[in-house]
Structures are given as structure tokens and as C-alpha cells.
């Protein structure tokens, strides 16, 4: 029961920030896939950067366990490609479809119904997939620091440096685009 309450509270907070960040809308999701709107990239990488540092700090303190999924190339590559096609058609991903509905974009309902069917079909196909696609390139539960043979903080530092570099690039690009359009660049964000 406590677990369910935690789930609900966590979801409410997460949904609140997703909506405030304006990342739930079809236009934003498709904009990201078209490389025209980087709001989702900014939101997502900011989330990952913060969560990565926090979770690994807690991990080093022995307060949390990591939850690793096995790296199965067959599943990840094929699944990723299939997911991308569906995402491009729908314009919402599984979690954000509920958030989009929450801000009134009720075309998400069709997507949610479709996703329920997709999950049911996957359950039907699973016994076959398990003996085929899901055996291709199975590396088990691995992490990047483990594969590279380095301390996880080195990987985190490299990720943070790359993320900040990308953010700076995006901001300077957007500023010069606005300047080119003859608009005043709105409040500068610097890193």
C-alpha cells in the first residue's frame, strides 16, 4: 500500500514538471524528431544529468541498488527501430501520452488504446521472440563503466561535459537564429 502511494506521489510530481517543461505536446515531440524543437532534448538530458549524479551518490553511500536490464542487441536495436516508427506516427511516448491527456490533448486516448493492443500483441509474440530476437547479442546486465573498465564518476564527468557542450551549442544556435529573425534574444542562459 505504501508503495502504491509512493508511486502516485512520484507520478504527480513528475507529471507536473513534464507539463511545466512543455514536453508533453505532439508538436514538441514531433519537433524533437524533426530536429526543429530541442525542448525535449533539454528537459531529458537535464533530468538524466541530475538523476545520474544523485543516484550514483546514493549508490556509493550504499543507500540504493541499481536496477539493470540485460543488454540484448537484437531486442534493443529492432525494438528501438520499431518504437521510433510508432513514436513518429503517434507523437507521444508511453508515459507522456497520459500527461498529454492530462493537459487536454485527448487524441492521446487513441494512442493509449493502441499501446494496450501493442502490449497484448507483444505478450502473444513473446514465446517466439524469446527463442529468436531476444537471444541475439545478449551481453547480460552490463554497465558502461564496467565495459570500459573505469570508475563510474569518469563516465558521469564525460557525460556531463558532453551535455553542457551540447546545451551551449543549442543556446548559441537559438540566439543567432532569433537575431537573424530580427527578434530580441530572450533572457540569456549561460552555462
Amino acid at each position, binding site marked *: 500500500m505504501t508503495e502504491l502511494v509512493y*508511486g502516485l506521489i512520484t507520478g504527480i510530481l513528475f507529471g507536473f514538471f513534464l507539463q511545466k517543461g*512543455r514536453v508533453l505536446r505532439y508538436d514538441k515531440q514531433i519537433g524533437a524528431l524533426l530536429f526543429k524543437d530541442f525542448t525535449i532534448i533539454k528537459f531529458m538530458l537535464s533530468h538524466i544529468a541530475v538523476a545520474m549524479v544523485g543516484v550514483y551518490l*546514493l549508490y556509493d553511500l550504499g543507500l540504493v541498488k541499481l536496477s539493470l536490464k540485460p543488454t540484448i542487441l537484437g531486442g534493443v536495436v529492432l525494438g528501438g527501430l520499431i518504437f521510433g516508427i510508432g513514436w513518429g*506516427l503517434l507523437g507521444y511516448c508511453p508515459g507522456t501520452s497520459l500527461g498529454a491527456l492530462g493537459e487536454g*490533448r485527448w487524441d492521446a486516448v487513441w494512442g493509449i488504446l493502441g499501446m494496450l493492443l501493442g502490449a497484448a500483441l507483444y505478450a502473444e509474440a513473446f514465446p517466439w521472440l524469446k527463442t529468436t530476437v531476444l537471444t541475439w547479442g545478449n551481453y547480460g546486465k552490463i554497465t558502461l563503466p564496467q565495459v570500459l573498465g573505469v570508475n563510474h564518476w569518469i563516465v558521469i564527468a564525460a557525460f556531463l561535459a558532453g551535455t553542457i557542450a551540447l546545451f551551449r551549442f543549442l543556446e548559441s544556435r537559438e540566439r543567432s537564429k532569433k537575431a537573424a529573425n530580427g527578434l530580441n534574444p530572450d533572457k540569456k542562459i549561460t552555462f
Partner: protein
Amino acid sequence: MRQDGWNPYVAGALSGLVSIFSVWAAGKFLGASTTFVRTSGMLEKWFAPEKVAKMEYFIREVPKIDWQWMFVVGILIGSLIAAVSSGSFKWQSVPDLWRQRFGPSVSRRAAIAFVGGTIAMFGARLADG
């Protein structure tokens, strides 16, 4: 041009804190797609309980309401609160960008969204995401 909503870096970072809180307080990492499997299983159970009970995937991902199921429902509520309190809630059956490109037909949008959802979830599950 006025910035609509919050700065995405700030909103994203705050949502990252939610992630940390969840892992620390409940030992749960954020995710959504397993919930669709569980819900599908719960719906199928109404029609074919014996079949669902024997299906390997539903033995793995038991059709029941769990932490993640509540998390996904919470996303809807949180988004609703944020949207209503800021006046950005808007009933819309066809997104603006879609309308510009494919016209105002609700049924066309519904059909493609449904098919897209089916494909997306199959892929998401295959990638175990």
C-alpha cells in the same frame, strides 16, 4: 517572444530530483511501458482468465496494479494540476502541427495515433524499455 511554460532545463532538473527521491525512498526507477502490459493483462483476464494465467509474459509481468501503475496515473493527475493551475489546459482532438500538415479530420488522426501506439508499444517492449 514570451517563453511559454518553465525553462526546460529547470523543469528537467527538478524532474531529475523526483527520480532521485523515488530511487531513494521507494527503490523504484521511473518507467511507464510495463504498465501497459499489466493493464492489457487485466483487461484480457475479463474475457479469457485461463488463457492469461498460462501466458508466459503475463506470468513475468503479473496483471495487477503496482507502483508503476500508480506512477503512470500520477503523471496524468500531475499534468492536469499543472495545466489547469496555469491556464494551459486545452481540449484538443487534433494537434496544431498535425492539422497544418494533415488537416482537421479527427478520425484520420485517431487511426494513425492508434496504429502508431500499437507499433510503438510493441517496439518498446521488445527493447525492454
